């Protein structure tokens, strides 16, 4: 059985944030929250790296382990999803997640924050596939349509990979063995020299 995974080739990410925008647009994500973010380290210095981050759909998900209402479940594709009908917006999953994936749509009185929202690997939620009610709660269900997450599909530098973990790992391995050090892009050594310390 295929296990769905994201893999970001940090050498190729140019921090264009198109994955973030595409995700927000595809799923009609509410104002103030992003299901995906681009994190940059060493910004403006030699060896700068950007990585596109979202829910990594952990095998033994810490969010599911701490949820007091057990609203998380893992599909046969190894995608971690949750039920917004059960979620009480307590925020435990946010503190448990090492990637900061769970987001909350509002800040209200007495610490209320609304139902948790996170990346669904474009597989939506427990409602019937590709229905209006499913879209309103979780966004588009591209996996059911035979497609992959839009963030990865429209990545202009082919940095963000998504899909069967074994296949995308093989693609990344092939890239690394072919290009060696650096991104393999033209002008890399002119920009960063060979001696750059990352």
């Amino acid at each position, binding site marked *: 059985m295929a296990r769905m995974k994201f893999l970001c080739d940090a050498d190729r990410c140019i921090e264009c944030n198109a994955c973030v925008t595409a995700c927000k647009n595809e799923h009609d994500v509410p104002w103030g929250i992003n299901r995906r973010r681009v994190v940059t380290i060493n910004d403006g210095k030699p060896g700068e790296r950007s990585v596109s981050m979202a829910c990594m759909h952990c095998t033994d998900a810490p969010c599911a382990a701490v949820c007091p209402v057990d609203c998380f479940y893992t599909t046969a594709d190894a995608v971690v999803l949750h039920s917004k009908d059960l979620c009480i917006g307590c925020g435990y999953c946010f503190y448990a997640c090492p990637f900061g994936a769970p987001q909350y749509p509002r800040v209200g009185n007495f610490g209320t924050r609304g139902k948790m929202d996170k990346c669904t690997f474009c597989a939506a939620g427990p409602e019937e596939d590709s229905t209006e009610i499913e879209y309103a709660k979780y966004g588009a269900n591209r996996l059911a349509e035979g497609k992959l997450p839009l963030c990865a599909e429209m990545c202009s530098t082919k940095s963000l990979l998504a899909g069967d973990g074994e296949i995308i790992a093989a693609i990344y391995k*092939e890239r690394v063995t072919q290009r060696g050090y650096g991104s393999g892009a033209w002008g890399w050594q002119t920009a960063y020299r060979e001696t750059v310390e990352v």
Partner: protein
Amino acid sequence: MQDKRSRELSRRNFLRAFGGVSTTAVAAATLAPGEAHAYDPGEEETRARYRETDHIKAFYRVNSYPEKK
């Protein structure tokens, strides 16, 4: 005046008596041990959606290096 006071007193006694009984009943019902149910979305919701369509095969192809001829 005396009548009014005794009437108030009796009303309060009434509420105390019945309030205490109802509170105990609610607490007993709430604290009674029940079976915990974890969320079980069912087989239909968790079945595999992923399949290698032509669309997905094209994604894998364009993300790999072109095959050497």
